């Protein structure tokens, strides 16, 4: 906790930005999409065995990629506010390769996007996109299990192979990057309103502190609350067992029943935090950063001493993509350090390309005044370029081996938020 920016990273450009509006409105709208999905999923199983050995992977890769050719165009689906609106990186890509890119910010929420594309993929139809960015989640695990994603040909990803940070090749949801490679990562931590809380919280126990009774906001997402309770109990979420889940659930139930929790929020926690309806809550760092930036608020974000969860948004190519060769070329392009650096400068997320830091520092050397300072801060921010010590504290979400396990997990944690 002695890093100079740790205590007050909200003022930094070096914050990870979770996109606004991802969860609230679209969760409401998502129900109708799920209704459509029903008709398609009521009948047969779509599960395929995940290739286990590297030889198997190799044969899958060859089977898919043989005979595929460059078409000169790629349709790219991403989340809002995840690239400079002027799209300098995409323009550069088109300049260098001649491949044009249609970029659409159509992905607003994990569940609703999954509900939208799942029936189309199940029917073997195109989803109109050759490339998409999707968060590690139960839905991602399902996309992989159901065989909806293209196994990536690493021979076509030379920049990725050369420049990716080592830990991004071992992600528990896709070890070896068979189907996915990271776009950017971010963290879930604690946010608080300094108007009401004088001493900065440093531990998860702050969310269980009776003096904040009725003023604590927790997330409605089962994974997020489970992670926090497990951190508070000293359990690594990614290595947790159902017995650990029960313990975590008991801790969360105690927190709820003693009236400490005001409400379980989706992304709508930001306004109540700014207004003082809640004083302290679970938060995605970027929300706080953007709120401060857009409304001039002075909310704070901390990563507790016990550690935090890191989530990763990943590139992937759907099976039914019409232009996979162009898509994989674009993926690899984002692993050039100067391109990764230029992206990180704008979005302020954790970049999976450590060498991007040098690119940013080079830009900082060229810049002057406030820009120079900002770029220097981004390069030094533990929230864009976490150190090994930082990474050692970061954990990933619980990954489920099968839907039974996920069902079990939800049946333990959902009753807490849906009481």
């Amino acid at each position, binding site marked *: 906790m002695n890093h100079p920016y740790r205590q007050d990273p909200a003022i930094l450009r070096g914050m990870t930005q979770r996109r606004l509006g991802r969860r609230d409105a679209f969760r409401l709208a998502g129900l109708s999409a799920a209704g459509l999905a029903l008709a398609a999923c009521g009948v047969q199983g779509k599960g395929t065995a995940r290739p286990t050995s590297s030889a198997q992977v190799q044969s899958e890769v060859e089977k898919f990629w043989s005979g595929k050719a460059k078409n000169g165009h790629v349709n790219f689906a991403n989340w809002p506010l995840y690239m400079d609106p002027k799209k300098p990186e995409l323009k550069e890509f088109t300049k260098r390769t001649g491949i044009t890119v249609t970029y659409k910010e159509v992905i607003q929420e994990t569940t609703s996007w999954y*509900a939208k594309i799942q029936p189309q993929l199940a029917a073997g139809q195109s989803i109109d996109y050759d490339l998409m960015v999707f968060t590690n989640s139960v839905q991602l695990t399902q996309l992989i299990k159901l065989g909806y994603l293209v196994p990536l040909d690493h021979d076509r990803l030379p920049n990725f192979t050369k420049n990716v940070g080592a830990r991004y090749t071992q992600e528990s949801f896709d070890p070896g990057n068979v189907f996915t490679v990271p776009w950017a990562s971010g963290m879930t931590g604690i946010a608080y309103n300094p108007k009401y809380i004088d001493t900065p919280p440093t531990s998860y126990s702050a969310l269980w502190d009776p003096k904040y009774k009725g003023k604590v906001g927790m997330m409605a997402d089962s994974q997020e609350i489970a992670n926090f309770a497990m951190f508070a109990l000293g359990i690594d979420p990614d290595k947790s067992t159902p017995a650990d889940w029960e313990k975590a659930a008991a801790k969360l139930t105690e927190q709820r029943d003693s009236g400490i*929790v005001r409400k379980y929020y989706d992304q709508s926690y930001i306004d109540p935090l700014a207004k003082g*309806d809640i004083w302290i809550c679970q938060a995605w760092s970027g929300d706080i950063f953007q709120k401060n930036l857009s409304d001039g608020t002075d909310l704070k974000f901390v990563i507790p001493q016990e550690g935090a969860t890191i989530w990763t948004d990943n590139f992937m190519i759907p099976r039914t993509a019409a232009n996979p060769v162009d898509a994989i070329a674009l993926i690899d392009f984002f692993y050039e350090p100067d391109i990764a650096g230029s992206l990180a400068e704008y979005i302020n997320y954790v970049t999976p390309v450590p060498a991007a830091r040098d690119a940013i520092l080079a830009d900082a050397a060229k810049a002057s005044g406030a820009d120079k300072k900002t770029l220097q801060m981004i390069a030094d921010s533990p929230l864009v370029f976490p150190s090994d010590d930082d990474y050692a504290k970061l954990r990933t979400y619980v990954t489920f081996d099968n*839907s039974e396990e996920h069902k079990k997990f939800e049946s333990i944690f959902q009753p807490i938020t849906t009481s």
Partner: protein
Amino acid sequence: MSRLRAALTPYALIFPGGLWLAIFFVVPMIVMLSLSLQSGSVEDGYAFTFNWHSYADGLANYHDQIIRSLLYGLASTVLQIVIGFPVAYWIAFKGGRHKSVYLFLLLLPFLVSFVLRTISWQFLLSDNGILLGPLKDIGLLPEGFRVLATPFAVIGGLAYNFLPFMVLPMYVALERIDPRVLEAAQDLYASRFQTFLRVVLPLSLPGVFAGVLMTFVPATSDYVNASVLGGTNTTMIGNVIQNQYLVTQDYPTASALSFTLMALLLVGIFAYARALGTDDVLEVAAR
């Protein structure tokens, strides 16, 4: 030819609406009924197994939320009658030539999106907001007092959101009362209170009935108000169903819960119709 056309006309008229209902109501209902009796998972597929467990499990795990939804729906409906009846009465009998203006004003908020209107309550009723803030400052309310994230906020939001659907049918019923009937009551020495109790009120009941039908059902199955205005322990069955579909992706349980809710509502409505002495529910509702 013309006779044939005359014979076909009714069918031609019903065709668009009938087709609409068949595609968007009947088919999904059948799919859902079938889903509720299937077992399996998204990956392994679902098989039709007469899996009645989904119903039993749904009731066992979520009876609290079902009962809460019925109570919230009932409370909000009563609140709407209490608030709405005087409004409908006043517009119908005292509105004069500005009746349509008042009705328009009543409907005006409904030009704004349902979700947005509910979210505006978050702003109005915020702990230190424009309503509660001043009251706390002058000491009328204790510092820890809150409206949001309580059952009262959810019930209030439900009542607010569905109010016009209660007022309009009541207004129609009241507006139709022949003034001569009221004069006749007074000629027979009924006091104004007796006139109201024995003439106006009974004649307005079909409107109240239709209003209850149009508000109790959607209020009970609503999930927006509970998720926007509620806190802990205010989850309604609509939220549970939504979660089961989108988060857990346990489609059989979600479908079973939907049907359970529908069955309960249907039973409730018919019991209510019987109690009110109107056997032909639909006819009354359509009036």
